[in-house]
Every structure is written in C-alpha cells, then in structure tokens.
C-alpha cells in the first residue's frame, strides 16, 4: 500500500520528473511508476518499476502515447510474424472459411473435423497474437487501448463469418487508430465487414418489392448501436425516429462476401440498396447524397458534444475510477472538441490530471479477468509459449477473448466482476501459476484453447486450470523476486501474513492476494 503522505506529493513530483536523475529512484517516484504501470500498462514485469522511475514517469507516459517510437523486441516480432492466420487479409481468411463450410455441406469425409481444426487454429492464433502482445509488448498503452476500443466497438467472434473476420477487424480497424483520430476509428469500424455483418447493416436496404435476396428492407440494428454505444450514448438525446433515419442514411453500406473472398474488397457502397429519399436526422435536413450521407453522419457523431462526453466518461472510468469525477470528464470532453477528437490529446489530458494521480485513485480499480490474468503473467516473468491456460481461465472467469456476445462489450467495473466465485477461481489460477503448474512454456502439438461457441447459459463446462495437463517438472515462482516486482502494491498487512507462511505458498499468496486484485 502506498502511503497517503507520499501520494499527496505525487502531482508535485510528477511535474518535476522531467529532471529525473539517473540515481536510484526516490520512493515516491517508485509509487508513481507502479501506479502508471497498473493503468497505462497491464501491471509491472520484473524490473519495470525501477526502469520507469529512473527514466521519469512523465517521459514514460509521453513515450507510451507515441508507440510508434518504441521498437518491438525482435523475438516478439518474429513470433507474431510466424502466426500465419493472423497476418493474412480478411479476404483470404473468409475464403478459407467459406470453402470449409462448402465442403461440410457437400458432406465431404472428414470435412467437419477439418473445419473444426481450422477454426480452432484461427482462434488460437488470434488469442496468441493478442496475449503475447499484452504480456510482452513494450508498447503497453497501445495494448491497453486495443483492449479498450475492441470492447467499445465490440464484435462477437461466434457469429457466423465473424469467426474468420475478427482478426482482421482488430488488426485493420482497431489497432491502427487506437491512439489516433476518433473519426478515423469510427469510420474504420463502420466499414469493416466484421461490424457490417455483426450488426446486420450488410442486409439493410431501402424497402424493395423483390422477395429474393436477404436485403429487402431496413435493418436498424447498427444505426441504433452506433448512436447508443459507439458515439452519443443512451442519453445522447436522440429518438426512435433518429434511429430509423440514420438506418436509412446507412442503407447500401455493405460488402459482398464473394468479392471479399476473391478480391479482398472489404467494403462497398451499393447504390441500388440505398434509400435515396430525403431524411431528417438529429434536426438536420439530409439531402440525398448516397454514401456521403453516412460519411456525414459519422462526421456529426464523432464531433458531437454528447459523444465527447460519453466516450471521455468511458475512458475516465477505465483509467481512473468506476464513478469518474465529472470535472475530469468535462475537461477531457473539452479537449476532445478542441482537438477534433484526437484520442492522444484526450488521454494526455487524463494522464496529466490531478484526479488520475490522486491518492484515492491508486488501487481503486478492480481488475477485469483479462487484466488480472495478463498482469499475473507479467508479474511472474514466466515466458509464454502456450496461451491455452490463459484463454481457459478467461473463459471460466466469464470474459472469453473475442467472446462477448452483445455489442456493448465487457464492462470494466468492480460491480461487474467482483463476485464470490470469481475470487475463488482467481486464487486457483494464481496458485497454479505460482506453482509453475500451468503449461505455459511448452506448446502442445494439438494446443487447442477452448473457443467460444455461442452458448445460451454461459454454462459450458471447462476444467479449472489446475486440472490442465501438468508440466513434468513444475518450476515454482521465486516469491522474493515476485515481491520485489510488485513492491509497493502489496500492503504491509499482506506482506506480514505472507511471511508467516511456508515458502511454497508465498508466491501464490501474493498473486492471489486482495492487493493484486486491484490496480
């Protein structure tokens, strides 16, 4: 636990860190370093706290805001490059998916098995790419923002062809814009086939008499979530009429499965489906303008004050506290409007705020299952070749990767994730990880992390991580090294209890402690 007296100095010290010396960092610099590592990163890896404290917290934040300046380690780049299904285009992924589906329809011998194996391979590689980066990338804020934006613009991998498309969605529509222009991010998600398919805009059209084909009329699913979740927020002041009118403006925003599979074309505006009538939307008279109507809508939505407030609040909730201070949200929204929705600028306002560095903010957030699992692996310093046990644990904790069925994405509040069973499962995971009993180091030939099937009850029975195959020679974590890595985030009380216990339980106790549940 960081002392309050120390924390009251944080803001002052933070302003002075530009002149950080090369000497051993002061305790308050360490406290700040730990805090920013818990928020802008998925927690510290061994040595991180000293490194960040030494280079200066503000400099580290500035660097994180410009991930393009931070080189990826060659080893990580090489491993990411080797994931063939992650690195190919959306068209190629879809082509393979459609071909396998065709074979299954033809009742080809073994086709079902082949399809299952391919789908598992695609899912495993997607999880591997995401988790390797989250654990090992030095561009931690970028990974944190990928997690944030993927949730904000959630697409469920279990829906039909989105199985094949989410990898491209994250890589092409989310990641490049994670710290860039919100308008560009919004446009990229709006035009990606994974989103067009997930929220049904692909089949939306002006009403037509033609009874053939799937697109025979308006589908308002995407238009509604675009305003409610992606931009204005549920209280953003729009009506059912605005939903319908926006849906009409977006008719024709679609893609052609066959063209995507054969030529890689991810988006097309189909003028034949577009509703060419005049519209009135959010008080604006919309003259017929084809695709430009939708582009105009995205322009208006991206820069709407309600959007600035809604998304700023979500960001503040993610980075500061479950009920973020309204004054901070207001300042972030002002930056949003002044900077034309520059995500980097809004985050800079957040990170520079006294609210972010306030004593009450430190440790105030309850880790989501994703944050818990990733931060535990980072703290352990354990090399990860096999992400299977991590994927399974997130499934059991109710947060499967790419597995949120609803477009609102996973919540990031304590109310959503703290429950009796979850604590027990986290402790079981911590104990297995600390005992070196998770098979993380070796990739089994048939590695197959359970992938999310759309399931109604959330009741698929998956074994606990302790039941996973056990490495022949478990290598337990060194509790002293772990304690040093986590340093100031473990309270004196917890430390004292840990010290009274046998050596072989100490690392498990640190990772399963109440202190490590929070960030």
């Amino acid at each position: 636990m960081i002392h309050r007296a120390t924390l009251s100095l944080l803001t002052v010290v933070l302003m002075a860190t530009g002149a950080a010396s090369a000497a051993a960092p002061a305790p308050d610099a360490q406290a700040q370093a730990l805090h920013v590592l818990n928020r802008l990163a998925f927690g510290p890896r061994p040595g991180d706290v000293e490194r960040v404290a030494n280079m200066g917290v503000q400099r580290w934040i500035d660097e994180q805001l410009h991930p393009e300046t931070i080189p990826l380690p060659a080893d990580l780049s090489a491993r990411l490059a080797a994931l063939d299904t992650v690195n190919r285009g959306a068209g190629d992924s879809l082509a393979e998916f459609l071909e396998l589906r065709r074979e299954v329809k033809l009742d080809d011998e073994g086709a079902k098995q082949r399809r299952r194996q391919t789908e598992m391979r695609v899912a495993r590689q997607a999880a591997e790419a995401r988790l390797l980066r989250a654990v090992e990338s030095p561009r931690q804020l970028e990974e944190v923002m990928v997690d944030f934006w993927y949730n904000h613009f959630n697409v469920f991998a279990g829906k039909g062809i989105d199985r094949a498309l989410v990898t491209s969605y994250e890589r092409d529509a989310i990641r490049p814009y994670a710290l860039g222009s919100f308008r560009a991010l919004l446009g990229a998600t709006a035009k990606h086939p994974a989103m067009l398919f997930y929220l049904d805009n692909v089949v939306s059209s002006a009403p037509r008499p033609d009874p053939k084909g799937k697109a025979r009329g308006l589908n308002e699913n995407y238009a509604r979530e675009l305003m409610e979740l992606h931009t204005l927020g549920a209280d953003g002041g729009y009506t059912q009429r605005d939903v319908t009118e926006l849906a009409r403006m977006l008719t024709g925003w679609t893609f052609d499965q066959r063209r995507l599979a054969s030529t890689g074309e991810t988006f097309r505006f189909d003028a034949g489906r577009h509703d060419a009538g005049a519209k009135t939307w959010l008080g604006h008279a919309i003259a017929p303008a084809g695709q430009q109507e939708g582009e105009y809508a995205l322009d208006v939505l991206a820069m709407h004050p309600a959007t600035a407030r809604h998304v700023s609040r979500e960001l503040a909730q993610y980075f500061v506290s479950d009920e973020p201070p309204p004054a901070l949200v207001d300042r972030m929204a002002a930056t949003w409007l002044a900077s034309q929705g520059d995500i980097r600028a809004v985050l800079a306002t957040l990170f520079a705020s006294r609210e972010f560095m306030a004593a009450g903010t430190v440790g105030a957030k309850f880790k989501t299952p994703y944050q818990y699992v990733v931060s535990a692996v980072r703290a352990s310093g354990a090399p990860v070749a096999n992400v299977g046990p991590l994927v399974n644990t997130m499934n059991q904790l109710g947060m499967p990767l790419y597995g949120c069925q609803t477009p609102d994405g996973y919540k990031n509040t304590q109310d959503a994730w703290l429950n009796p069973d979850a604590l027990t499962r986290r402790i079981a995971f911590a104990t297995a990880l600390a005992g070196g009993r998770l098979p993380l180091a070796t990739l089994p030939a048939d590695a197959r992390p359970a992938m999310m099937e759309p399931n109604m009850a959330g009741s698929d029975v998956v074994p606990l991580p302790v039941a996973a195959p056990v490495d022949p020679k478990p290598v337990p974590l060194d509790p002293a090294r772990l304690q040093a890595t986590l340093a100031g985030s473990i309270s004196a009380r917890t430390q004292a209890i840990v010290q009274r216990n046998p050596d072989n339980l100490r690392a498990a106790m640190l990772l399963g402690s109440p202190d490590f549940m929070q960030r």
Partner: protein
Amino acid sequence: MHRRHFLNALALGAGILLPVGRSAWAVGGPAASPTGKKLVVVMLRGAVDGLNVVAPVGDENYLRLRPTIGLAAPGMDGGALDLDGYFGLHPALASLQPLWRARKLAFVHASGSPDATRSHFDAQDYMESATPGRKSTPDGWMNRLVAALPGPQAPSRLLGIGPVLPRILSGQAAAVNLPNVAGAARADLLDRPAVKAAFDELYANHPRFGRAYADGRAAHLEVMEALEKGEMKREMEAADRGAPLPNGFPDDAARLAGLMRNDPKIQLAFVSLGGWDTHANQGAAGGQLANRLAPLGQGLAVLAERLGPLFDDTVVVVMSEFGRTARENGNGGTDHGHGNVMWVLGGKVRGGKVYGEWEGVGDAKLNEGRDLPVTTDFRSVLAQISEEHLMLGDQRLEQVFPAMPQKRAGFRIVGT
C-alpha cells in the same frame, strides 16, 4: 387487503428506496419463519420475440405483419400449438404443452417495463433493478427481496448461475454466483487445508473483498455438501453420462433442481440466457429463434419434473427486457419493440390461461405504430408473486419494488 395498504403507503410519498442492510433480516428474529417457497427467475437477454412465443394466430393482422416469420395456424404444417383458440405456442416449445394442459403454466401478454427505452442495456438494467427510468438504483430487486424475506440468511439463499454476478442479484445481501452447477461440485484448491488457511487469513475482514471471499467459501461448502447427498450424486452422474443436449440450459436446469431439493437454504435462483436479438433471419417454426426456444422449453420442463414435489412450492418466471416489432423487417427479422410476454409456471400457478389486457395487433393498436404497448407493468406480476407466493409483508414489498405504479394487475396469477 395487503395490497391497498401497500398502495396507500406508496401514495403517501414513497419512491424513496429504503436501505435494506444485512441486519434487516436479523431484526425479524426467530419469530419470522421461512415459508419454504421458492422463486426461479429466467431472464432472456436480447429481447425475445414474444409475438412468436405466444403468437396471436387468431388475429387477422398477425400473418399480414409477418408474412415470412409468422407461425401458421394450429394444425397446419409447422403450425403453432393451440393454447386457447386465439393464441398459439411456438412449436419449438412443445415440451411445455403438458404443463399448460395441467394448468401449471400461464402467460402475461403485452407486459413489460413502462420505460420507453429500446436500448437493451438500459432496459435490462431497469428490469433487474425494478426501477424503470432510474439508473442510480444501486441494487437488484432479487437482492432486496432476499433481504426482505423472513428467515435466516445464507449466501446460497440467493443463487445465480452464469459467469458473472448479474445486476439483479447485486446489493447488500449475500448472494452467490456459480458459473455452472457442475463446476461448483468439484473440489478446489482452497479445500486443501494449508492453502485454505493461508487465503482465509489474507481475506479475513478485508474491507473490500473479505465478504465476497467468505461468501464464496461458505456457498462452495454448502453446494459441495448438497451435491454429496446420494440421490443428487446419482442424478449428476446420470446427467453427465447421458448424451448432453446441445445447449447447456437443460443440464443446468436439471442440476439446479437437484441442488434446490438437497439444499433447503436456496430460496431464490436466477439464470440468464442470451442470444435472442434476432434482427435478421429469425425463422418461423424452424430456424434461429426455434433453435433457442427448444432447449429453453426442455430446460423448463426438466426443472419442473426434477423439482418433484417441490414444484408445488416453486414459481418460475421467464422474462425479457422488451419485445420486438410487430412487423417483420426486410431481413426476415424483427427490430426492438416494447411489450412482451412473461411466462409464469409452478405447481400453484393458475395456469392454462393467457393473462393481460390484450388489444390485438391491428395497426391502430400498436404502440408508435410498431410494437405491442405495455398493458401490464412487469413489477405488478413480480409483486403479486412476492406477496401471494413468497408471503412478503406489505412494508417489505415497498422496499423491493419502490415507486410501484398505482395500477395493479387485473388478475391473480398464483394461488396460495
């Protein structure tokens, strides 16, 4: 009349949520006796299409509004199952027909939340907090209910099944959430004495996580104990060995029934099922919606059967955040609507009847020209069940359902 007392109290300036602390039940003391009555709530997240669950097949407008997804008349190929000559049940719910015939299954049509939102997320929140239009309510109504019911509290008295603790269960009173019943039956690491002692000490009286930890351990031991009982063990083994159904709900329902029979402390249970947001390719007698309804119906039938004599003391409510458009859209689906159908089953339910004020699906009768109006507030059904079945006292009823509307349901759906 209890009800009048309650409504008078409301008229005198209620709308204020009284805090119900953990100590609230303790005040009741030994004089208050548990009723042994149970409530199971099943929430269908994503707004199920109630007009195809209990379809007005006798309405001349129905098939006009739904030329491709409408259910055919009873007796036709793929037709609805006749309920009362006007309404028909979706054929994928054939497993519920015996309960209907035995008058242990009823529906309340055109029911739902008075709030007009068509946001899934707001509407679910309102249904779980039972305070439509008010987002600041900190707790869920099932949590307030368990705190208000007479009898000793136990973490497992309020049980949820699913990966996360739902809003409806969250609040001051203890509640336990199991990802699935089978998983909870396994011994875990914390059952090893050294590990248990270490973590017990770490979490003892921890201001933020101590209670969740303690509740988790208590419930785990209780569930383990219940599952150790011979009969349940045999059932579990039989269920595990038999061919599992494609969806998890029937299995979970079977285990939930066993658990409720073996652990008398469990009084309120909650399960939620997702995947009802059918904007495209919804299907009619077969297809996407039918594929969801079939295991739901099977699970409810299994629950009723496996509860055995306890079914007489149980009410099961199935509800969803709002209904869907009366007209199918251009993609063989439906968009977000308003009124929906609630399902109520149990040994003492006055079943075999579709309740509610029903005005048909003629264009002039539709809310905003697109969906069913809400003629019965969902809270008035829940309040009636709480009052008549769970024997919740008047004052306590107001704590559970604050700011109830003056208008009461014009029917009595459950007997005592």
